[in-house]
């Protein structure tokens, strides 16, 4: 295996839920030595102690079998430390000494109370990058407020324009877009700070508001208001300037397909497939974009007459072969059926002590000549306590004492 891009970097991650943990996994994918510092004895949000909807049935601790936790925690080593205890603080100070990045996700002010605010951390290691990822940042009237990704989505204006145009707004499914994109924001911020460190020869503190990390990604929402004093409407899957652009039924119950034709060439291909070649005649009202915008209902009905003859995969194949934008709306089991994903060896199979061999989602990117791999399956709580403490110079007896006095642990109480 060749060198990996982030080899040699040591990352300390003290975050929960998704954005912070996923960022750290992405760093681990690229070769960084990532150590997750788990909350102890309190278990984190993704480490439930009683079964819930995302828990794999079977033996072993419930908190080791939660899908939400596994999604965000590959390629890390794991320590579970009670850093409220002086002996826990001592361990964490040692970890900080040669770390490059420390990512923390507590609500504003909490990490200072624990003795590891930026003023403290930079005294321990002046070269470190410390990133705080509180939902709304560390300054401002919302700094103490707590949220998950869905709350951030709601306050950017994104949620307000999602959902069925004619339906009840409460039927809109909340989503966690900020978690998915937040991981990339934290990653970029960390590397930007490390590049600055190369020049300035000193560490940096980053105040990363996950809300600010998300809001720039929806330029049209703000611009509709600032340019035209309009509040964007809920459009469902329509596009006011593109017809067709929608989701259509297939032959399978409650299974769907996306179809769109954004220009006259794609329209030609679509009409050939759905048996409406006359709609491409120059004199026909639907042969041009302006005419099609006026005929959305009839065009949508014709497309659905076609798509309802096939399953989504087959219809998409036919349409794509004729240069039309089309994709099945996949369900989780469908992800296993994708020839494309299999051809690219995207799925990863990992063996975890309590879940056994499982197929999970693959990497977000590939890098040549590096080889990305899922080297460390999602670690057990405290799995690497001894290994890391030994690296830090603690001896066996001392480590045993740390377990005995509750400074470190490798299991949670129910």
């Amino acid at each position, binding site marked *: 295996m060749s060198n990996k891009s982030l080899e040699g970097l040591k990352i300390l991650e003290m975050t929960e839920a998704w954005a912070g943990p996923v960022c750290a996994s992405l760093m681990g994918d690229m070769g960084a030595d990532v150590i997750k510092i788990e909350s102890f004895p309190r278990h984190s949000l993704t480490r439930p102690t009683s079964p819930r909807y995302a828990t794999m049935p079977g033996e072993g601790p419930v908190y080791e079998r939660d899908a939400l936790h596994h999604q965000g925690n590959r390629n890390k080593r794991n320590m579970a430390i009670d850093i409220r205890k002086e002996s826990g603080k001592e361990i964490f100070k040692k970890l900080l000494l040669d770390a490059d990045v420390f990512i923390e996700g507590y609500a504003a002010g909490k990490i200072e109370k624990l003795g590891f605010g930026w003023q403290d951390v930079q005294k321990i290691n002046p070269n470190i990058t410390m990133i705080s990822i509180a939902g709304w940042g560390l300054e401002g009237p919302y700094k103490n407020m707590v949220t998950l990704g869905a709350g951030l989505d709601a306050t950017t204006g994104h949620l307000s324009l999602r959902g069925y145009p004619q339906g009840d707004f409460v039927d809109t499914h909340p989503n*966690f877009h900020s978690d998915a994109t937040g991981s990339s924001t934290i990653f970029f911020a960390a590397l930007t700070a490390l590049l600055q460190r190369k020049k300035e020869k000193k560490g940096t503190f980053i105040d990363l508001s996950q809300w600010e990390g998300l809001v720039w990604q929806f330029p049209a929402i703000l611009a509709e208001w600032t340019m035209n004093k309009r509040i964007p409407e809920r459009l469902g899957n329509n596009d006011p300037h593109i017809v067709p652009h929608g989701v259509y039924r297939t032959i399978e119950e409650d299974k769907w397909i996306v179809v769109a034709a954004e220009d006259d060439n794609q329209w030609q291909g679509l009409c050939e497939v759905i048996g409406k070649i006359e709609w491409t005649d120059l004199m026909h009202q639907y042969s041009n974009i302006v005419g099609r915008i006026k005929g959305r209902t009839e065009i949508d009905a014709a497309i659905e007459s076609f798509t309802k003859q096939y399953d989504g995969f087959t219809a998409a194949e036919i349409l794509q072969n004729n240069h039309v934008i089309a994709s099945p709306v996949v369900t989780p089991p469908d992800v296993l059926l994708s020839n494309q994903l299999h051809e690219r060896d995207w799925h990863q199979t990992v063996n975890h002590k309590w879940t056994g061999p499982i197929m999970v989602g693959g990497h977000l990117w590939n890098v040549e000549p590096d080889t990305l791999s899922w080297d460390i399956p999602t670690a057990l709580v405290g799995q690497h306590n001894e290994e890391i403490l030994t690296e830090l110079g603690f001896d066996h007896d001392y480590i045993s004492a740390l377990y005995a006095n509750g400074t470190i642990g490798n299991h949670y109480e129910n």
Partner: protein
Amino acid sequence: MVQPLNDMCVIEISDSIAGSACTKTFSDYGARVIKVEPFSGNKIRRMPPFKEDIPDINGGAYHLSFDTGKESVIIDYSSNSGLEILDRLYQLSDLVIFDTEVEKTKKLRNIINGNNYPSTVSITPHGMSGPFKDRLENDMSILAWTTRMYRNSMENMSPLRNAPGSTLVQIGHTAAAVAVGIYWGQKQDKIRRDAEVAGVEAVLGNVDTGFVSWIFTGNLPERIGGQLKTRYPTGIYPCKDGHVILSANEEPWFSRLCNAIGHPEILQDSRFIEDRENNWQAFMEYLGPYLEKHDKNYIFTHLQEHGVMVAPVLNASDLLDDPQAKARKSFVKIDSAIGEHYLAGAPFHLNKINDESFKLKSAPKLGAHTNMLLNELGYTKEEIIALFRAKITG
């Protein structure tokens, strides 16, 4: 203060939102970003909205937002003469971002040969290989491949997309992460790298998809809309003047909520202790009146004081006046082709809030920097005229 990426040069050869979104953050933190465009301009220049609904190649909202601080050069790289310019451009740069069709990207990447050239990132919908590599996709059709559309819907009703363009932005943002990662790597070990971001994989492999949960449990995501009535209160709830979103179904948030709304007795009520999943209606007899009585901003501040995860559902008109956004100067006034307007500011703050590590500069007019760049690349005046006359540059 020197911006952190000020010694870096990034080339963007892109024809979708993703490539532009990828390089924006580099530009805003100081990198020189050279945007190579066709004569008709990058597609995002044609993305609405436009001021007063008047289409303007230099005035679209996506262009003004995502092309901040970049240089725009027009090069027809379908010709050998155009490729020769790109070759010089590559050697000037540290990183090249491709976001074009697979075969076109391969051709543009083939020029790169040896460690003196920059690392690259290639963004495509399905990747550079495999049976789907040449498929036509857009923002919505890529999302359809990721299970997120399926989940964002109700049973027997059509799956729903997110905000237009947001999937491509996520893909571009993902590409920015790996781009800065391999740039760091090349700085460390002098190894040139080629990264590939397949849009479907980038979204499907991230969180908020149902794939891993299904592997673990065999259960499909619940498609029941915005309110989970078995694990509550979670989701969207109407209030006096709009809606709020709650995440208070688990402890300690459930207890905090019950105390905050003045009904601690819920916590002793056997209906909610032993059979909570079947008593949503009964619970709403307590929560409903509280929500009806108060507006979203009161609920936000009041429940948050009790440590409850709640947020108001805001729309575009609320954003600029949001107290937090105002306090942090989260939106920045900028002067560009359409005059003064607001853009979102720094996605993260180095050193201290709103220091000079992040700067928003206006987006370039189409082709504004072509001649300057050709000069810099060493072309003579006669050569520059020849390229212009042959419609290689513009």
